[in-house]
């Protein structure tokens, strides 16, 4: 399990457009639109989309940086990356 690196593979999994890429590059889940199908949870290759027992809609890291600021040892950092370099799409070419 890893923290979300915003590669966006889940964007093409969402049937209701609850997952979108925001202007700052962050992949964002709108929980009001989400219908809790868990397709993004099941298909995330690094286990970054997660689900808590308390509600049906999943959650993920949105790179808000709160943990970076809170870490007393400064062991965490936020790194700027170009979306084009990390963007990934759902496999489909295999097999066929």
């Amino acid at each position, binding site marked *: 399990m890893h923290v979300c690196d915003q590669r*966006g593979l889940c*964007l*093409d*999994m*969402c*049937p*209701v*457009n609850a997952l*979108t*890429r925001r202007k700052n590059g962050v992949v964002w889940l709108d929980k009001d*639109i*989400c*219908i*809790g*199908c*868990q*397709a993004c*949870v*099941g*298909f995330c290759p690094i286990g970054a989309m997660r*689900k808590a*027992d308390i509600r*049906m*809609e999943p959650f993920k890291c949105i790179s808000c940086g709160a943990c970076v600021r809170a870490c007393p040892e400064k062991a965490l950092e936020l790194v700027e990356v170009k979306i084009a370099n990390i*963007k990934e*799409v*759902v*496999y*489909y*070419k*295999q*097999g*066929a």
Partner: protein
Amino acid sequence: MVEGQIAVEEYKTENTEHTWDLKKIQSAHKILKKILYKKGQVTKGYADRTLYVNLSNNEISEKPVTDEMKKKFTGGRGFGLKLMWDSCKPSTRWDSPENELLITTGPLCGTTQYAGSGKSLCLSVSPSTNIICDCNVGGFFGPYMKFAGFDALEIQGKATKDVIVVIDGEKGSVSIETAPLEETNTHLLAEQLTRMYASEDTEKSRQKVSVVSSGLAAEHSFWGCLNFSFYDIRRKVPRIKQAGRGGLGTVLRDKKIKAVVVKVERFDGVSNHPADPVALAKVGTKLHKEIRDLDRYQCNMRAVGTGHLVEIMDAYDLLPTENYRFGSFPKASKIYSPKFYELFTKIIPDGCWYGCTMACSKTVDGYTVMTGPYKGQKVTVDGPEYETIGACSNMSLWDPLWILEFNFYCDTYGIDTISAGTSIAFYMEMYEYGILNKERCDGLELCFGNADAALELLHRIARGDSGEFIIVAAKGARRVKDWINQHGWGDKHLVEDTGMESKGLEFSEYVTKESLAMQGGYGLTLKGPQHDEAWLIFMDMVNNAIPTFQMKAEALHYFPMWRTWFGLNGLCKLPWNDVEPADNAQTSEPSKVPEHVQN
């Protein structure tokens, strides 16, 4: 074009766009009856009431679902059969006013976490067989109807003018309205009604509407199918899934129903109020992961849908070719799944219900229609699935584009690709033997491979052509056999043996003479030869999992019983055995996929 991560708003299909004066069309509606109902909540998968509509006297009422009914019949086709038992008589035929058209859901229907949980079950007395036929179908209608407040919809009687039935889960109302100005063919009608009944002019609102419709050919043919719509926010068109077998669309049009519309107020992942949502999400996520990791090495459904079967069937002599004369053909590689893969739109969640990551509902977008009334227009073609490709190989059509053409017109005219394809293949073989000829076929040269003639036959059926052959041909293989025999045109035994039908229903697309188990399944099934209950050909001939007579007999007992269970609950069978856990082969009975039976 970038092949993924396209924002929904920016996605384009290049389809021909239509503009209609929807206000004018809607203002022509006359409300024949409208009732308001109390909105309720679904509990553990049941809305606890069914909806009864009678079109002869414009009655609309609710019926309760009792605990005993749940215990005895579970739901889905079980509820459907119970309601039909209560309402029909032994003398009821497909066109009797008391014949019912039922659309039902099961307790698990509407679950979003587990792939393939959006199936509706449709039942009626079939025009082909005059026996009750049931079909399962995807699309949003069933789950939306349940979330709007009803486990089943029961339509009896006949209207005198074209009507639509509207279930508005937002306002809590059900109405019967005349619909004189709407189109009848599905690809236009579904779009008109989806736009008309969406609360707002947004993709999100349109996604909350689902339409059941048929088409012009269903009025003149016994092959009528029901098209269930599911709005695609990326393609911005309502897509469709078919309840194909048995002519249920013919019953719909015989009752003068143009469409049934349902609108849901809101729904989420727990609208079914399951007893244990946490366990459900865990099991569902486990299946998503299995599909993610294994589908590409197993069935490749996510890339090509059920079309992956074509090359397997061809390799094992099971692909029906030239009216089941051959099981394999030198040209077959032209219609293998990679050919359709090139045409399919990629990178879109293609499930026919939310959360189905099996995603077998592939489409070709921006397809340019080659014949008929929509010639030159660009449309979205839903499919083709294996059965449609098999129906075309049966007619010896080996061009993927003609297969798409056949698929598109069958869908929008509201006819079943299987029944139509198998029947036309029979007419073609009769033509080849000289038993039918150009004159007897009203000018159609129905030789094998003549796609133009096959499509022209569909267009003429849709137009209500009065040619003697066209009228009989539209009623399927059984009626054409009788017609040929009445005229004494060919050897009676040859005609009887050539037309692949049983009880009046045409065979679906497998060469059953190769597989005793499949042949048994087709012969023993109550509703006629279809592959819903006993799809054993793969385990029998490809996997060779049931080699002895005893094992085949066992399979003919176990699988129809087990597969019926899916129809009781509103589930799709594909996620059960079209993706198998990695260690399935090590289990004691791999063909039953024990791990998926357990969850």
